[in-house]
């Protein structure tokens, strides 16, 4: 048992190392000279050369990789070539913001998707079910940033009920934090909710055809109770897979909404750092994103084990 856990962790670690190499290689061919960007248009070529050496950009790739990843392993992401600050805290701050935003939106999405998806599945053949299903189909088809723009226009600009964008730390001002969270979370959550509700619907439809639902009906449970007591947990399994993948894509995917609402999240930080060719920061961000997703997969695996006893006891 311990061995197995160790092996799993070993596999996970190997994956992370490979991912770090992929990240490093991919970013090492970035065009654009970080030294030149730091110095600006007035600097001479000699200045740029000196700056290149100072930033350690003239060392061989292997050395740079080992130096970088070695430090990452001890929690040191290096120093940003732009802000001159340790990158770790910058990433942590931005990641925190994005994670809060994404999780809130996912919670909103679930609050919408579960009842909506179940309803559309149960009422599949009724006209109202078809209408609801159509609504969610259209919801899936709307770009998230368009939803964001419209929300800002209506609730921030026209009605002035909520701020048009920006971010407040929950620790600084909790009410302000909530105000700033609502619109972006809704923008991100509404589209995700529509997507999720499609999965909930098909998963519930699938489960409704299962034999054990028929068994439950034969026991004297009404259709609704049978679904509620026996179906939903079973239907949750495929939905969870999708949810895990969604959260993974949203970490970067939220960048569009972050842009609409001027939120300094991880995706925005990545775009900024890429633009500034802040290579240590970009590498750090990409690695954190990738490891986050890998870890998320691992957790989803684990969650399956918890929800499904068939996976728990293998013998």
């Amino acid at each position, binding site marked *: *048992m311990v*061995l*197995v*856990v160790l092996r*799993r962790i070993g596999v996970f670690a190997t994956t992370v190392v490979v991912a770090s190499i992929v990240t490093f290689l991919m970013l090492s061919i970035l065009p654009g000279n970080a030294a030149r960007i730091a110095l600006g248009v007035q600097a001479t070529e000699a200045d740029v050369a000196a700056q290149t050496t100072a930033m350690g950009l003239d060392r061989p790739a292997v050395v740079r990789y080992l130096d970088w990843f070695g430090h990452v392993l001890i929690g040191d992401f290096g120093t940003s070539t732009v802000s001159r600050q340790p990158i770790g805290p910058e990433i942590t701050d931005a990641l925190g913001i994005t994670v809060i935003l994404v999780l809130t939106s996912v919670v909103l999405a679930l609050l919408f998707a579960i009842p909506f998806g179940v309803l559309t599945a149960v009422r599949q*053949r009724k006209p109202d079910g078809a209408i609801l299903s159509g609504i969610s189909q259209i919801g899936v088809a709307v770009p998230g940033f368009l939803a964001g723009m419209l929300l800002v226009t209506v609730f921030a600009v026209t009605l002035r009920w909520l701020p048009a964008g920006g971010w407040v730390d929950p620790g600084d001002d909790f009410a302000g934090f909530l105000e700033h969270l609502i619109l972006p979370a809704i923008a991100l959550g509404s589209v995700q909710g529509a997507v999720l509700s499609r999965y909930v619907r098909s998963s519930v439809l699938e489960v409704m055809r*299962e*034999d*054990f639902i*028929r*068994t*439950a*009906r*034969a*026991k*004297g*449970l*009404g*259709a609704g109770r049978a679904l509620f*007591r*026996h179906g939903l*947990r*079973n239907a949750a399994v495929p939905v969870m897979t999708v949810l895990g993948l969604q959260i993974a894509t949203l970490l970067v995917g939220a960048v569009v909404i972050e842009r609409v609402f001027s939120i300094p999240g991880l995706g925005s930080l990545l775009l900024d750092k890429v633009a500034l060719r802040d290579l240590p920061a970009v590498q750090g961000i990409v690695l954190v994103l990738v490891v986050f997703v890998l870890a998320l997969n691992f957790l989803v*695996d*684990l969650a399956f*084990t918890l*929800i*499904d*006893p*068939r*996976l*728990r*006891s*293998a*013998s």
Partner: protein
Amino acid sequence: MTSITPTATPAPTLSVRDLRVGSPFNELLHSISFDIAAGERVGLIGESGSGKSLTATSVMGLLPETLTATGSVRLNGVDADLLTAPDRNLNQLRGNTMAMVFQEPMTALNPLMRVGAQVAEIMTVHHTVKGRRQARERAVELLTQVKLPNPREAALAFPHQLSGGQRQRVMLAMAMANDPQLLLCDEPTTALDVTVQAEVLGLIGKLVTDRGTSLLLITHDIAVVAEVCQRVLVMYQGNIVEDGPVGRVLTAPQHPYTQKLIAASDLSSVDDRGRLHTMSMPVVATPVVSTAETSPRRMPTDAAALPLSPAHRAAHQRIEADDAPVIFNEVTGTPAIRVRDLSRQYRRRGGSVFTTAPIVHGLREVSFDVAEGQRFGIVGESGSGKSTLMRILCALDQPTSGLVDVLGQPIKGASERQLRNFRSQVQIVFQDPMGSLDPRMKVRDIVAEPLRHVDRAEARARVEAQLAAVGLDADVMDRHPHQFSGGQRQRISIARALITRPRVLVADEAVSALDVSVRAQVLNLLADLVDEYQLTLVFVSHDLGVIRHLCDTVAVISDGRIVECGPTGDVYDRPLHPYTRQLVSATPSMDELARRVTA
């Protein structure tokens, strides 16, 4: 609001009148009428598509939304027609006054819920016990009654931790929990191994007899009906064509369909050419609900005559208590197949985050020979290792250790190149008529697939010839598998297997998925072809009856080893190993059944 109040007059438990079920496109059940008296055990028999399951689901009110039922279904003591009663009222009846057991023990239980809780639920739903605690206590009691080992622990198990038979017992416990008036069982034992099947059937019989519950048992297997029921209804194409006491129907079927069905079910009865009775002629569906006596039909009593006696006759041996290795059916000279000390272990796929996949012993030190021209049957239940053995014989799998020679070709460690000749010499016929043919390929391509280095024209000619040999016209060549019935698909499978003129034919449960009527035809065909091509046949099956009909020698395999092997008749008549005895008694012949029923 319809209320449920007992009516005063004594009446049948279930009364079905003029039940018709239709889809938007056509009618599936045509005016079904029957009664079941209190405590009566009735079997409903028919082949796939005859409408027997629809009958049961109509009674339960669980028809798919898209089907509509008309007529009337009345339950004793219920002042309403179940077909028109609102769902809310049916909910009070289902699981309480009438209960149902389904075919698929693997999927009929909620995989995420402990079985005890699932049994308890049916009582809490109908408030037949006070409180959850009492429901749980009662659930354990019920699990004890259905003879689940360690019922207290079993109640805490999840369905996947139980075997198929155990799950079906749980389903039974659930169904009987509220002492229903009527129990419906839809193919309750079809998915179970024969030995388990007998136990579960015995249990059903005992439970309903003890409690005076009326039983409607749906099955395709006449033996199952004979085992449990007093009366049998025969369904054919949406009609009940015969209705009578089991003994009478078994011995003196009246309707032509029933007659054919029973004849085809009897693998020990052959015609004057040594061939099984088939149902190839179309049967006119005329409902007959009479119980008039007819003259008893003479049942052939002699065992199936073996059309071909191989030169080699196997010794009748069994494994000894000390597990000393035995070489079964040892052949002097060069056998077609020689297996020595064959073991196969594998890791079960899956496992979870925290557990390693367990090692499973598929086969343990198996040794036997198969002589050239022999018809060698391998019989065993699911998980016995028979499929693993078959796969290794066809070089689809590799032994972990031991020696396997087929037609002089060592299997262990052989590369695909070395096996090239072997591949055309050893061919295989599978169980599943749906799954064994690629749905995207035309019959022409399917049958020609094993051919190598053959030009189109010759391939076409050979395919045509081979299709003719299995009784199919050449015009089927350009069709796809889904356009054929199960029996026809199995013919195509056989054509594919024989097109390379192999010397060894391995058949894996080749008739198990077929309806009784078709089974006989395919078995006859196989027997003919084995003769014609002088094949060495290895026939793997769970069904001793089929093996007995087709094979001269049988090996009984259990838990990864051969426990007994010998000439089929000997093994059947004088089983040496207790497991074989169990197996034999669980698969009675028609004669035996008739004897039991009329006794």
